[in-house]
């Protein structure tokens, strides 16, 4: 059956905020990389996580242009804020950088799970929708698979950060809650603006 208005609204917002989120993650890693370029232990780690985020961003860029979804207008602000966050936490120390990664990935993991919940709720109501219509069928199913895969990647980053002593950072509690709060606000704004 055709998509309802609310479903279109949801998909529109979901794609927009996901692209904004991946952009933010990209910038955070690039900020952290700028500081840890000379750190033999962290450099390959951050580079690997950054490359995965680049792949995520490219996927969402392609989805946005295919479905003609408006990108977020806050992009210039997220550009600065993301890089500053990555750079700032990296300058605070290795453990702080890992704590930042942990907080961001936790928030993104929750966010993707919420989206999956809504999409799978749509499936439960209308199993036929995921089979797809016409030759280009399965669009929503592919979206679900993509989000699942990316959520698993993000949770892997989360585990990596915890392994690298994220929880032992100075001021971990404050950092963690501050960053998670900032992410929640950014998600709220990017969905709408």
């Amino acid at each position, binding site marked *: 059956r*055709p*998509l309802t*208005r609310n479903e*279109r*609204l949801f*998909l*529109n*917002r979901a*794609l927009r905020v996901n*692209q904004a989120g991946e952009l933010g993650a990209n910038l955070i890693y690039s900020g952290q990389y*700028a500081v840890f370029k000379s750190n033999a232990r962290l450099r390959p780690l951050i580079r690997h996580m950054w490359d995965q985020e680049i792949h995520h961003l490219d996927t969402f*860029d392609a989805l*946005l*242009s295919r*479905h*003609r*979804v*408006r*990108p977020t*207008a806050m*992009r*210039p602000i997220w550009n600065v804020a993301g890089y500053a966050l990555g750079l700032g936490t990296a300058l605070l120390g290795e453990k702080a950088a890992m704590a930042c990664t942990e907080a961001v990935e936790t928030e993104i993991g929750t966010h993707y799970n919420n989206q999956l919940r809504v999409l799978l709720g749509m499936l439960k109501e209308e199993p036929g929708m995921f089979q*797809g*219509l*016409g030759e*280009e*069928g399965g*669009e929503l199913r592919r979206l679900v698979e993509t989000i699942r895969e990316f959520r698993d990647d993000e949770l892997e980053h989360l585990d990596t950060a915890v392994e690298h002593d994220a929880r032992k950072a100075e001021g971990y509690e404050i950092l963690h809650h501050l960053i998670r709060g900032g992410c929640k606000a950014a998600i709220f704004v990017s969905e*709408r603006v």
Partner: protein
Amino acid sequence: MLLRPLLQQPRTLTLAASRSTATQLLQRSYHSAEYGTPGHSYSPTETAILSAALHHVPTTGFTKTSLTTGLRELGYPDITLNLFPRGEFDLVKFYLEKQRLNLGALVDFPKIQAEAGLGRLSMTQKIRTLCIERLKANEPVIHKLPEALGLMSLLENIPASVTELAELSDEIWALAGDTSVDTSWYTKRASLGAVYASTELFMTQDRSADFAETWKFLDRRLEDVQSLGKATANIGHYVGFTGNAVLNILRSKNVRLF
């Protein structure tokens, strides 16, 4: 003009009312090959009535008369006019939507390329072609268009008119094959919106043969946008080079910032 909102009927909480507050700003657009694109923002009945009314616009203009004639043709009682709380503006908006949704069917780029024997059309040429086709579609009602533009500029109608211009701008860029999804998405659409709106206004006053002056006006506006783009890029380069030079000078003085 400012008294009009006070004199109008109070809006009820219907789907029509929520549309007229025009808070959409391209929030609901999700185009897909599978589930189709969002079409008219009017219900099937309203679409039928407005389509019938559009036939009369060349003679009676964007007025309640056209709406009433359309209604009567379809056999509805005159009271059905209350389906359109925004009155004539609904007719204008429907006309704009119809032309926008039609634009894709009007232009077939592979065919144009084959006929002209060109390799590939540049983005600017595609945009130019699309703008011209959309403007040409205005020709049957061009003598009534100033009235429509006036209605669009009423205070209570401005959000909906601007939204419609933004959607048209987005449609033209998408048909030209634009795939940008960063800040340039906004700058491109804003500049094209300005170009299109000014050209349409010019067209309503143009009396030359086949609107030749309008096409020249369009070309000049598109050139303006391009030169502005080049100027901005040049400024960006200059700032980048200067910043780099400063960093290098600092490095030479052993002050490593980056």
